[in-house]
């Protein structure tokens, strides 16, 4: 699949430029986000846009998608030059942008999410037109079939909010197919997908490419980019620093161009702790989500838990944090039985939980960094008359951001002004304020760039060295292999196997994750 395609379809000649940017500049209040970017996207090719957070990737995409105008420069689409685009112009020109949130309308049906854009584009964004329901249905069916989703009336009528994330991802791609996009931009499309779902996504993308569609991925997952192939475009500080076939570069080279400094890609875990049992989980279960989960976490140990999306790993994590309490089994912390019915129970017991979705479940985005850090210990910081003691909370917050190297000029800034990696550090910092015994990290580096990952891994290691028990729930296997002492694999709600992380191959873990799923699907 990596061979240069010579089977161009009749619709577009592979290799002809579809989109060209020339000397594009963009400045935001004091920040020069794009500094003279020029690049060419050719039909029927796959591109990976890579770079650390804040390198200008998102700005570039917004300019191409018509969400923001450039300050200077030219955008040329199939020979036609534009100074700037509106979203409807970008869509009409055949550019479909799938943002990280997928840009799906949760309340509308599958058919509408897939097929409405096509009618909107056909009418150039003018809304005074009757809805062509037959066309909507047919367009949706055709596009859904192309991504292997059902085309039944029941599925077409399902509101998108009732569907799992992997299906939504494919629906967003189906929308691109429905508008007959010539170029599809996907912003971190695999972040919340399991590997099997990613494989399916890659197949769909390859189909698109063969039909002459240009695909631009934005991703932090280097391994996946190699698996997909195509060209890599590396950005740093608002400039394109490199472009070329991804397979002619090593991971290390790409990481260095992105960060501008050498990165070590080795195992972070060096000592294997043999501390006494800290957290003992006995036969924990919740409805049909998971069953009979038993394991022991030692003091200073880092335990990884992985599995497919439906394996129960997410539910187990939430049960340990008291977010969605288990309905059977028991949990002991330092030999004492604890009951985790609500998040506050876990906090009081000394269990910190950094959720997977830090934007929705973890952070108060508009609130200052300080408030986000001290929110778990408000009781302790209460001064006379119940007012919050400001100097003490400032002290605590400043200590945490220094400790975790959060890059911010001051703690009064809102959390949303930080990059993903720094937001994650604020969230970890919040739980350090309760002086936890156990820290549960759910997808700790989702949407975090290479440089920031490195810092977070070092923090995790240091915490374990200080005697904390750490549980990492993740489907990023290299991450678990680099950081953990042991890795538990879950499948269909059960913990099926435990590996020692220092002598196991990624492939073995993956096989264990899939084992039953494959045989069942073949049947």
């Amino acid at each position, binding site marked *: 699949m990596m061979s240069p395609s010579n089977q161009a379809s009749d619709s577009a000649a592979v290799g002809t430029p579809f989109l060209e940017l020339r000397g594009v500049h963009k400045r935001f209040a004091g920040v020069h986000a794009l500094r003279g970017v020029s690049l060419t996207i050719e039909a029927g090719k796959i591109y990976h846009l890579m770079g650390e957070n804040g390198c200008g990737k998102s700005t570039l995409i917004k300019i191409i*998608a018509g*969400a923001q105008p450039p300050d200077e420069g030219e955008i040329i689409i199939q020979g036609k030059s534009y100074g700037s685009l*509106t*979203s*409807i112009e970008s*869509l009409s020109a055949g550019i479909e*942008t799938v*943002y990280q*949130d997928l*840009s*799906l*309308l*949760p*309340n*509308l049906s599958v058919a*509408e999410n897939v097929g*409405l*854009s096509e*009618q*909107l*584009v056909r*009418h150039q*964004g*003018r*809304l*005074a*037109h*009757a*809805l062509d*329901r037959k066309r909507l249905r047919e367009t949706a069916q055709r596009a859904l*079939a192309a991504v*292997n*989703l*059902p085309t039944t009336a029941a*599925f077409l009528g*399902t509101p998108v909010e*009732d*569907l*799992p994330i992997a*299906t939504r991802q*494919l629906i967003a791609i189906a929308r691109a197919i429905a508008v007959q996009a010539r170029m599809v931009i996907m912003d971190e499309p695999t972040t919340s997908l399991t590997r099997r779902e990613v494989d*399916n996504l890659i*197949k769909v993308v*390859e*189909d698109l490419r063969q039909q002459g569609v240009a695909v631009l991925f934005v991703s932090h997952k280097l391994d996946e980019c190699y698996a997909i192939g195509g060209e890599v475009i590396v950005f740093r500080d608002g400039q394109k620093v490199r472009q070329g076939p991804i397979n002619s570069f090593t991971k290390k080279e790409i990481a260095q161009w992105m960060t501008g400094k050498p990165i070590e890609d080795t195992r972070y875990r060096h000592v294997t702790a043999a501390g006494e049992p800290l957290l003992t989980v006995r036969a924990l279960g919740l*409805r049909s989500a998971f069953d009979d989960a038993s394991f022991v976490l030692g003091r200073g140990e880092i335990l990884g838990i992985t599995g497919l999306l*439906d394996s129960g790993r997410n539910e187990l994590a939430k049960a340990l944090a008291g977010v969605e309490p288990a309905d059977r089994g028991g949990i002991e912390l330092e030999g004492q039985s604890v009951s985790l019915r609500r998040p506050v129970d876990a906090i009081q017991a000394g269990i910190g939980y950094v959720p997977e979705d830090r934007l929705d479940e973890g952070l108060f985005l508009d609130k200052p960094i300080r408030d986000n850090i001290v929110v778990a210990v408000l009781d302790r910081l209460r001064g006379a008359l119940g007012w919050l003691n400001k100097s003490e909370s400032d002290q605590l917050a400043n200590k945490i951001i220094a400790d975790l190297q959060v890059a911010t000029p001051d703690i009064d800034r809102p959390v949303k002004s930080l990059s993903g990696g720094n937001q994650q550090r604020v969230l970890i910092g919040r739980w350090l304020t309760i002086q936890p015994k156990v820290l549960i990290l759910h997808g700790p580096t989702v949407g975090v760039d290479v440089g920031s990952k490195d810092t977070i891994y070092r923090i995790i290691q240091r915490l374990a060295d200080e005697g904390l028990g750490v549980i990492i729930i993740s489907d990023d296997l290299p991450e678990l292999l680099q950081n953990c002492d042991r890795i538990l694999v879950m499948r269909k709600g059960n913990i099926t196997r435990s590996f020692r992380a220092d002598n196991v191959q990624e492939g073995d873990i993956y096989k264990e994750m899939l084992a039953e799923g494959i045989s069942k699907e073949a049947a």
Partner: protein
Amino acid sequence: MMTTSTLPIAVKSAPSRSWQVMDWLVRRPSSFTLLLIVLVCGVVGAINPTFYSVANLFDILRASVVLGLFALGVLVVLAAGGLDVSFAAIAALVMYSLTKAVVQFWPDAPLALILLAGAGGGMLLGALNGLLVHTLSAPSLIVTIGTQYVFRGFLLTFIGTELFMNVPPAMDAFGKATLLTLNTASGGQTQLPAFVLVLAAAAILTWWLLERTLMGRAVFAMGGSLNIAERLGYNLRTVHVFVFAYAGMLAGVAGLMHVAANRLANPFDLSGIELDVIAAVVLGGARITGGRGTVAGTLLGVLLVALINNVLILAGVPSTWQKAVIGAFIVLAGAVFAIRRRG
């Protein structure tokens, strides 16, 4: 060529059996409204069998017209993720100033022209709401709380404060026109007024706009998510102006219906009806946070509120308690619809 096997699609957390009934209700919120209507009818009818009469049915329909026109407007705004509380003020301003102008300058104006002027006036005032909401990107609840004071203040300061009963003959005749006259068991007569047709027409128009036009889908798209709708190329300014102008138009017509039905124009009328209307729309299954709602559900909600407002007295419930019943139903409906989020 890749092999094509359809992926298994798991719908998020299949509900356990005990939740299925609830789930069914929540998916079809208007069935819950219907249930409440049946419940109220059953209870009132059991206590006072004379409740089951055509006269009562006609009374409820008559009382539903103004409420229903307002509710359809609120539904459209709510579907787009906004909230309008200025409709009653728009109705009062339009009905009083228009009626007064017609009486003064052209007493014999034809009905169609009066209706058209009312619709147009309401539309303009509503469009002003829409423009303000869009350009200020302020919460529409706040904006319309503001404009409704402005509209009412303008009405009472510049147009007049005195009620008058010499309404234009065309409107008087329209208010008296009947669709159906039946003899009641007690020997009297009961009439179904012709202006219920206005509500029917408005309902059909609203349904068509919401379900059968691109604009209607854009309304729901915006109610689903403002940011995403913008990214997908929907013109939010157009949608904002449309929904508020449409609600304003229905409010203008509702105001005239109020005058025609009561054969008097009182500038102090129609205040305090706002919450009844929003209650009806929410009881009809529309989501208060936007993006969900149907015309059929809204009509059922209107029927329910009109029913409670008009017939509880037959069951010996003091009229002061009507509001409490509506309130209890809203809390109940809120609880039922909230279960979906948790389940």
